[in-house]
């Protein structure tokens, strides 16, 4: 395990860049941003469900990483460390969002179902509409998951991380990753069944 981390640290040039940043060379941070911005933006967007908010969040995550450069201990891959900062940051944002909605007395159904306008890549309007419906359903179902299950599901399903990588990002055991994922899947299955019956009953009324 220790050998693996040392090897990974030696392979990942990001740690070297961070060491330069810690030594006062702020410009050494730019290549790190270049190489990780796409995946961090994607992660923030999937956790927050809003592209605009994700851009702000990703900027904040990079700034936090810059501030922590002096303290970080090279272990594993740099992106794992960045993911950890991003997940914590986004979950904090979601908590604040929930609190704001609670204080504004919004309806519970509105919670965590932000509007988003994904790229229109489908040529056929009908299939475009269907895709949007599926995305919206997924977004809402994920939004209703407890935050610990949500982060595991997003990292495994949409970021394609292995249990071991997710465990490293979240600082939990692989067994805990597995349990959270199974619990999330049970909830999603129930949500999808409910959605299917809602759609069928709506079609039956027409």
């Amino acid at each position, binding site marked *: 395990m220790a050998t693996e981390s040392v090897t990974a640290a030696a392979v990942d040039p990001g740690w070297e860049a961070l060491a330069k940043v810690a030594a006062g060379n*702020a*410009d050494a*941070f*730019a290549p790190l*941003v*270049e190489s990780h*911005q*796409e995946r961090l*933006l*994607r992660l923030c*967007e*999937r956790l927050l469900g809003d*592209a605009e908010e*994700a*851009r702000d969040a*990703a*900027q904040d995550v*990079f*700034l936090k990483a*810059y*501030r922590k450069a*002096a*303290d970080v201990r090279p272990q594993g891959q740099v992106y794992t460390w960045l993911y950890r900062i991003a997940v914590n940051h986004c979950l904090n944002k979601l908590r604040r969002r929930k609190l704001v909605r609670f204080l504004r007395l919004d309806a519970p159904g509105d919670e965590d179902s932000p509007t*988003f306008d*994904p*790229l229109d*890549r489908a040529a056929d309007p009908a299939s475009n509409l269907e*895709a*949007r419906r*599926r*995305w919206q359903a*997924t*977004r809402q*179902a*994920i939004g209703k998951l407890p935050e610990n299950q949500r982060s595991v*599901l997003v990292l*495994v*399903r*949409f970021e394609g991380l*292995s*249990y071991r990588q997710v465990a490293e990002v979240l600082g939990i055991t692989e067994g805990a990753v*597995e*349990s959270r*994922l*199974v619990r999330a*899947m049970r909830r*999603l*299955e129930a949500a*999808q069944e409910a959605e299917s019956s809602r759609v069928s009953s709506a079609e039956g009324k027409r």
Partner: protein
Amino acid sequence: MTSGTEHELMSLLRGELAAEEARELRARLRREPELAADYRRLEQTWNRLELPPPSPVPPGFTGRIMARVRSERASGSLSWSSAPNWVRATAAASLLAGALLGIGVGRSWPAADASPTPEGAIAGLKVSSGEDLSLAAGYWKLIVESTTGGETEARP
């Protein structure tokens, strides 16, 4: 379905099972229709999870971050937020130690138990030559008059 089996099915779906375990579970799926139905349901739920393609990285994104980094560095390399954790921890510990010391000293201070009296207050304002401070005496008179409505004679 037991929790263990559910975990195994999930691991099979994710490709997280070791080759031998995966082979055994696949053989069970062929033998047990109920288990196979559970697996199909899990797979269907998994495949129905779809999110829109992620937005592209906005132009100038790196530049904006680097501008914030440079402005932070310029505005205060000594700022609290940019200080390393050990500096912040030491500062917090010093503050706490200072506060505890202050409380301890405050409690053990003899003067803290003495109840203030007008005489004591005036005596405390005597200068080394032994003369009363006329300004302090004047203030005391004003305080007494305002609290008693001027009925009581003010002390000198």
